[in-house]
Structures are given as C-alpha cells and as structure tokens.
C-alpha cells in the first residue's frame, strides 16, 4: 500500500505552517516540504478527522500533517472513525434524532431510578449518619427545646416504637432511634432522617392520647427511613441537575432553564408519591405490631380541623390530607 497526499505540516512547539506532502509505503510515512526535503519519517501514531475538519496525521517528533484530501489508503490507528461516521450528515441522523427522543423519555422513566439506585447502593453508612447528626445539631440550636414529657410517657412511646421497629425492614444506613423534642413552631409533628433518626414533637404526643395514632405516625416515619426516601429525593434532584447541566448544556440556555423549572414542579409530585407510600407501609407496620394503623386517618382529620386545607394549598409536599385519610380508611377495608 503506497500513496501520497498534499497538505500542510506543523512542527512541534511552533506556529509554523509549511506546505508539505505526505508519502507512505506500508506502515512507514515520509513528510516532505515543498523542496522535497524530509521533515519527519516513521510510523503513523494516530489519524483523526472530525466531520467538517481536516484529516490530521500525528507523526513522530510532534509533527502534525493536515490535509483536506481523503486519506483512506493510509494505514494507522483511527480511534474516532466510527464516531465521525455516525456524526456525518446522512438521512440516518433523522433516526438518531428519533431515538434521542425515545431515549430521553426512557431516561426520565427508568434511567433516573437506575442512577438513584446505583448511587444509593454505593453510599456508605458514615456520611448518612453524619447527616442525621448534623441535622440534629442544627435543629437543637435553632428550633427545638428539651422534651417536657415525663419519663413514663417517654418510655411508653419508646415501647410502641420498639414494637414497630421489630416489624419493619432494617434501617439501610444505621439504626432506628426515636428522639423527643419540644418544638412549638412545628406543632403536632414527626419527621425522619435518612440514617434512621426519628423525631416526634411533644405537641403531637400531648394532643393525641391514642397510642394507635402515635403508632401509625411513627410507622409512617419508619417507612420514610426504610424506603430511603430522603436520599432518593436528594439523588434524584442531583441527577436531574447534572444531566440537564451536562447533557442539555447543549440545547442552549433557554431550554436548560425550562428543564430545570419543570423539574422543580415534578419533584413535588414525586414527594407526594413518597408520602402515599409511607402512609401505606406505615399503616401496615402499625397493624403488624398489633395497633390499629387506620388511626393515621384520625391524625389527618385533626390536622385538617386545626390548620384547614387551604393553608397548605396545592404546593404542599403532602397530598391533600382529606384524600389521605380517605385512602387509609379504604385500605382498612372501608370499616373506618
């Protein structure tokens, strides 16, 4: 195999552009200037060609030969040849565009879940526990006071909690633990952290004497931990941000903002799904531990009376309280 091509040569570490000819026979090439003097010779290191760009032949000693000619006869490594072929203007690109659309839908539908699952699988315990610890330090600094409950009541609630934990899946990144705090600003409430820390407010325990209500609420929070809801949401938001920034860095700034705004709205519906799941699993756990899980509906009814649905509005992360109460009663077999 022998051949030659006309083009230009660039020496290493110089902006010189020299009219040159490349000759090759077998695997060896000679780079010659206009007078025929050999500038470089030896084996070809690499051949590159972007669509719309020159063919670039990397030669020994840092020489670069560029030509608009077709170098198909020149033997040498062409690492990006398949890519350049795929990118070339061709009716096939219409199919690529269509597959793009389908792939984007699939990415949205399954790819995100896969990314989130991968990220959770490789998440070690230590940083998740640190999230719990750090959050508690912040809450104690800013919001919460020591609990005002007497020790007997605390022990009773802890007993309910232990019973629930025995019937729940293990906490993924730590141990379940229940903390009592006096948080007037939050009212009757409970919340969970990814490492397994669950906080219940004095206000909730004081307002709801019924152990079944407390068991159902704690079951709900335990489900948030066991189903890894906090990290799922965090990873999901992070993955979407990264994908939009890094992939759609291309579709341009307007579309990029549009995608990010849309994502914020979708995150709301996603967290509503999580709440519904926690309701379902929480009721089941409470039932399994010998309580009446449907008492969770009572809790929502009471909240509804107190704050009124309007104040939460449709932006709330929790689905409409009345709907949730109805759904829980439905799960319990419609017996109320």
């Amino acid at each position: 195999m022998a051949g030659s091509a006309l083009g230009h040569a660039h020496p290493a570490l110089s902006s010189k552009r020299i009219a040159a000819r490349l000759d090759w026979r077998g695997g060896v090439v000679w780079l010659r200037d206009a007078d025929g003097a050999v500038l470089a010779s030896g084996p070809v290191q690499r051949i590159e060609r972007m669509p719309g760009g020159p063919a670039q032949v990397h030669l020994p000693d840092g020489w670069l030969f560029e030509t608009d000619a077709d170098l198909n006869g020149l033997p040498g490594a062409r690492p990006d040849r398949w890519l350049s072929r795929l990118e070339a203007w061709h009716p096939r690109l219409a199919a690529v565009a269509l597959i793009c659309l389908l792939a984007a839908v699939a990415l949205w539908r399954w790819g995100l879940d896969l990314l989130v699952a991968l990220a959770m699988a490789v998440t070690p315990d230590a940083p998740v526990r640190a999230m719990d610890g750090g959050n508690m330090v912040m809450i104690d600094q800013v919001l919460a006071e020591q609990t005002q409950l007497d020790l007997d009541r605390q022990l009773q609630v802890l007993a309910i909690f232990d019973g629930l934990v025995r019937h729940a899946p293990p906490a993924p990144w730590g141990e379940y633990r229940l903390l009592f705090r006096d948080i007037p600003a939050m009212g009757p409430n409970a919340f969970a952290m990814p490492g397994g820390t669950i906080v219940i407010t004095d206000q909730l325990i004081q307002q709801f004497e019924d152990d079944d209500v407390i068991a159902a609420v704690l079951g709900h929070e335990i489900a948030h931990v066991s189903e890894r809801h906090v990290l799922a949401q965090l990873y999901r938001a992070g993955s979407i941000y990264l994908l939009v920034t890094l992939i759609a860095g291309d579709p341009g700034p307007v579309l990029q903002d549009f995608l990010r705004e849309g994502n914020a709205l979708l995150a709301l519906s996603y967290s509503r799904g999580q709440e519904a799941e926690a309701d379902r699993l929480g009721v089941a756990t409470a039932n399994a531990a010998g309580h009446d899980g449907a008492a969770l509906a009572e809790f929502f009814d009471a909240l509804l009376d107190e704050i009124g649905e309007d104040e939460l509005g449709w932006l709330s992360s929790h689905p409409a309280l009345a709907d949730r109460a109805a759904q829980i009663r439905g799960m319990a077999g419609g017996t109320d």
Partner: protein
Amino acid sequence: MSQLQNHQVRFTGDAKTYFGIWIVNILLSIVTLGIYSAWAKVRTKRYFSQNTVIDGRHFDYHATGMQILIGRILVILGLIVLYIPILNLLAILALLIALPWLLNRSIAFNARMTSFSGLRFGFDGSYGRSFLVFLLYPILSMLTLFTTYPFVVRAVHRYTISGHRFGTARFGFDSPIWPFYRAMLISMVWAVGLLVVGFFLIGGVGVFQELAMASQYGVEPDPALIVRFMMMYVLFFVAILPAAFIYQAYLRNSVYENITLEGGHRFRSTVVPAQLVWVALSNALVTVVTLGLMYPWAKVRMARYLAESTEVRAAGPIDAFVGQEEGKVTALGDAYTDIEGIDLGVAI
C-alpha cells in the same frame, strides 16, 4: 516595525455538519446516563475550534473525554459533602479558599487544551490576584451598590487576558475605565427606559392596584387584567435580555481594541449592538419554537457573526511563534466551572 497585516477571522462550519455532531452527542450522553457528556464537550469544542480560521490556519481543542470525566467525578464527589450538615460548613469554607485556585485551573486548562496553527495557548495565574478579582473586588463593588462594577470587569479582563500566552508570546490588556462605564450605562438606559415606558403604556400602576384589591377582598380578577399582567412579564424579557447583549457588544469591542499580543499584534471587534441583539434573540426564538432542533443552526449562526466581526492585525508573520514544554494540567477546575455553570464573564 513591519506593516500591520489585517486578517479577517472566518468561521467555516455549517449547521448541517454540527447538527450531526450535536444529535449524536445528545444520544450517546443519554444512553450512557451522562458519562459521554465529557466526550461530547470535546467534540463540540473541537468542531467550533477547527472551523475558526485566521489566515488559513485553524484553532483546535485537545482535551480528552477521559480527562474531563475524571475531573467531573472528583467535583461531584466533592459536592456531595455539601449536603452533610455541619461538615458542609467546613466544606464551604474549603471551597471558598480553593475557589481562586479552581478558577485559575479552569482558565489554564482551557488555554492549554486550545491551539492555533498547531501551537498551544497557556495561562499563568496567581492565587492572590485571582482571589482579588473574582472574590474580593466583586464584594467591594457590592458595598458601593455596584456603581464601581466596571472596575471589577476591567480587573477581571486585565487578569485573565494578560495571564494568557500564545506559545511563549504574552497577551496584554489595559484600558481606560470609561468604555466599561459606557457599556454598562448604555445597556442600563435601554433596560430601565424600556421598563418605565412599557410600564406606563400597559398601565402597570393600575394592574398592581387591581391585583392588590383582588387579593385583599378575594375578588376574581378580570381576565383582561391577567393579559396585561402577562404583558408586563413579556416586557421584562424585552427590556432585560437585549440589554445583556448590548452590554456584551460594547464590552467586546472595547476589550478587543485593547488586547495586545507580544510582537505588536492587535485585535479588533466590530460587533454592532443591534445586530448582536437581533442574532441572539431570533436564535433563541427559533430554538424554542423548533423544540431545540434548530439549536445547531443558531449556534453556528452566532459563531459566524462573531467571527465576521473580528479582525487580527498581525505585525509580523504568524509562523514566528514558538512554544515551550509545559507541565501537566488537570481538568478539575474546568469540571467545577462546568458543573456549577460558572461563566467568568470575559468577553470572547
């Protein structure tokens, strides 16, 4: 000194070719769950570099996808720490301390991975000056309610441009302050003027009064009012977006006028603000209306317009530049500015 020779910058790319690169980038990025986006960045930058031509010589981009991917993975791991309470306070502090360094690395990486006529660019930064121009000066200008912001912009340009080299030849930049004030004032006059005039044409005061009444007394607002409210939203875009491009146009022209390259080479930018606004806004409109499919056309059109508005006035042969052996650079800073979407605001 020899006669100055003018070289018009040309952009030789076309929408068809870039469309192929772009759509394949997106497809491969999606099916690899984002991993390919590192290689996609390289393809895009290479295409636009190789098609930017001065005196028959083109630019090129030499980073590898793997370099960029490794940088991105490190940055993502670092960002995760920001979500751990308490620990994140330390991380934010560490990030603030590292920021001038990261920005230097980002500029240096891009310079080193870019070549013209077969010779690489370079950037020599300093931590101290980077800290001043990117962190301290902006904070100080905030204290003056941004009335001194043009001084920050000039300092950023002076630092980034005069840190650059082409091979061993240094770039230089200095400029009086008034072009920077002029750019800011003209774009502000546009934005504020249009906002005020439009606000009164739409009857903005009335709109807000009625809206306030509606929300206070729970009256259902008149649909016509909603339309007028939407028009105020549109007005906002008509006033603010063009102002950004007007600013860019004046800034670019005066910055290029004041760049020097060792050997007496000069540059010239002749962007017409109205034209830049037209190209940018019609690009955005076409891109949105075609759901992004015409984005490659828009991007190529902008590259062509900017190239056509740029000239190099060479004081000697472009063959005469030489380079030096350089140490390795990592893509860490580049990945950081990519992921955080940081734009250093340097006119290019």
